[in-house]
């Protein structure tokens, strides 16, 4: 086999300029194929990577919703979280409340998304600078004293776009204007930390505050939660825990990470269809390119092929040789396809991420080992199929007639 590959490679090297051009052409089509493979599962893979970083194995949401997709609440979320946390395979169950608020500072009111988290909860966001809620002096703000300055953690957008820094005192309001403010609460807060909230939109302001303070500000009854995040000692048993939760509380949906990604993936089928169509076209162009070049090359060497057959090379060996040429073209083009595909994906990703409503930590094109292997496999199969067409013709070659024709021509 090594000799066949060597012979095939040297056959291609006979026409270096032509072979180089084919490599370039295949690199371009291979790059598009890679990009489509990256796009097919890219958003799902990117979401999976971010969710895995958070470290929660199960997510519990009000039935029929996705996290923070509406105003629905798990009415007795605290109690359900406590029941989940009591299980031996659970290390933490964190009830999270989500709400839209306004941050008032220097006469401006900026809409922001607030996460109400129990003090001491870890992993809902990642602290970048300063202190966490649990470590701050008035962190235990689970009481009802509304005049106290409550600690908050804000995201980078708020720090960068609004000039908010550690120690700044802000006012949170439930409504945009001063008139309605009489009917809704306000809360003075101090910025104690700056954090990455993972799913922020490019200019979205987010903050974390204690659940009790947020409920008080919103005038919500105690005990409700928008989402419960569950951390387990053995995440491989997440599906079993999710089944246990939904059996115990039918008004919620509980998803393991895989199930959550599958549900999300099902909502992204248009990306898959788009990538399937363009990916198929790329593979077809690669096939035609390889089939054409190998057919031309074989046509120029019929005399040599007939000679090899006359010398005793088997039909199968000649077919192997031609197939190897097709596959080598695909293999040779792969590094270029990978490089070009990554550059193209980076730029396409930037364009798509500029669309409204896309969290800044997510990516449409994810370079995963699976995407690379799948592209390599498709390119290799395309090379073999491209070589198969001329190989099939060569297998039917009449040795004597070809030798005669090549000698008298």
């Amino acid at each position, binding site marked *: 086999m090594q*000799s066949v590959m060597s*012979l095939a490679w*040297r*056959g291609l*090297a*006979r026409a270096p300029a032509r072979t180089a051009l084919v490599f370039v052409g295949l690199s371009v089509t291979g790059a598009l194929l890679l990009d489509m493979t990256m796009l097919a599962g890219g958003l799902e893979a990117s979401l999976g990577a971010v969710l895995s970083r958070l470290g929660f194995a199960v997510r519990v949401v009000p039935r029929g919703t996705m996290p923070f997709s509406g105003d629905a609440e798990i009415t007795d979320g605290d109690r359900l979280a406590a029941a989940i946390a009591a299980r031996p395979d659970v290390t933490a169950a964190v009830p999270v409340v989500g709400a839209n608020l306004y941050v008032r500072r220097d006469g401006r009111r900026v809409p922001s998304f607030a996460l109400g988290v129990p003090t001491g909860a870890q992993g809902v966001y990642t602290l970048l600078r300063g202190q966490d809620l649990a470590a701050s002096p008035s962190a235990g703000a689970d009481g009802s004293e509304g005049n106290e300055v409550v600690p908050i953690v804000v995201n980078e957008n708020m720090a960068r776009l609004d000039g908010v820094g550690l120690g700044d005192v802000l006012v949170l309001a439930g409504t945009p204007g001063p008139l309605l403010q009489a009917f809704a609460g306000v809360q003075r807060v101090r910025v104690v930390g700056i954090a990455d909230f993972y799913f922020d939109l490019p200019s979205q302001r987010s903050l974390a505050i204690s659940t009790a303070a947020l409920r008080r500000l919103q005038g919500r009854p105690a005990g409700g939660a928008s989402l419960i995040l569950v951390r387990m000692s053995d995440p491989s048993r997440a599906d079993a825990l999710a089944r246990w939760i939904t059996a115990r509380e039918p008004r919620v949906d509980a998803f393991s990470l895989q199930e959550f990604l599958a549900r999300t993936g099902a909502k992204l089928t248009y990306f898959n269809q788009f990538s399937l169509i363009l990916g198929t076209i790329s593979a077809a162009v690669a096939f035609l390119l390889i089939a054409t070049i190998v057919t031309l090359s074989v046509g120029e060497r019929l*005399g*040599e092929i*007939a*000679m*090899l*057959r*006359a*010398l*005793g*090379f*088997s*039909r*199968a*060996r000649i077919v192997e040789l031609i197939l190897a040429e097709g596959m080598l073209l695909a293999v040779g083009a792969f590094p270029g396809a990978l490089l070009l595909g990554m550059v193209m994906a980076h730029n396409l990703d930037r364009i798509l991420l500029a669309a409204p409503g896309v969290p800044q930590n997510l990516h449409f094109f994810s370079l995963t080992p699976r995407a690379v292997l799948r592209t390599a496999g498709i390119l290799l199969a395309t090379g073999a199929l491209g070589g198969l067409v001329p190989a099939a013709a060569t297998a039917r070659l*009449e*040795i*004597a007639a070809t*030798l*005669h024709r*090549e*000698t008298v021509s």
Partner: protein
Amino acid sequence: MSGHPYQAQGPVVHAQVATRVYPMPGEPVHALRGVTLVVERGTFLSIAGPSGCGKSTLLHLLGGVDRPTDGTIVLLGRATRGLSDGALARIRLLHVGFVFQRFFLLPMLTAAENVALPMIEAGVAAAERRRRTGALLERVGLGGRASHRPGQLSGGEMQRVAIARALANHPALLLADEPTGELDETTGREIGGVLRELSQEGLAVVMVTHNADLAAMADRQVRMRDGLLV
């Protein structure tokens, strides 16, 4: 390596009333009309005749690259008509050598690599291949040209490389189709000399040629006309 059980006794190849008809759209072409010929070990046989008389067709039948329409070709004791394509290829690989008018050397390989090709296909070990290749190139007077590519060799040198390649697997039969057709007279005579020497060493050599002088170098000459030996 399992080769064909070559029968050292008896003729190397035997054509018995062999015919070859090529089906054509208008009328079939009768390239051979019943040729009987026996080639023994150590024979240097030349086949001469005008163009289109069936010389190359007979050579192809003798070497097993084609099968007769009727009659029999017994190559190394086995009738070629009954053999599978794979079995026939194996016999050609191990027991038949071919030399062509146009040499058909692979231009991207060196002289040594061209000579080694049939040995690679036959599964000869690398060390033995190197030893045999060196000896064969020395044998045809090209010991110093092993690393040269065909484009760096003269016509006569290329044909010598082709002869060395034909001898790579120690064949019993060497078939040469117009081996001097693209060479000058002097070089042609040299090639004829090499073929005669090989036959004197016990190899059966069958050569098709237009060249009367070259044909005269053979120890047995036959002529063909209209698909028949005359």
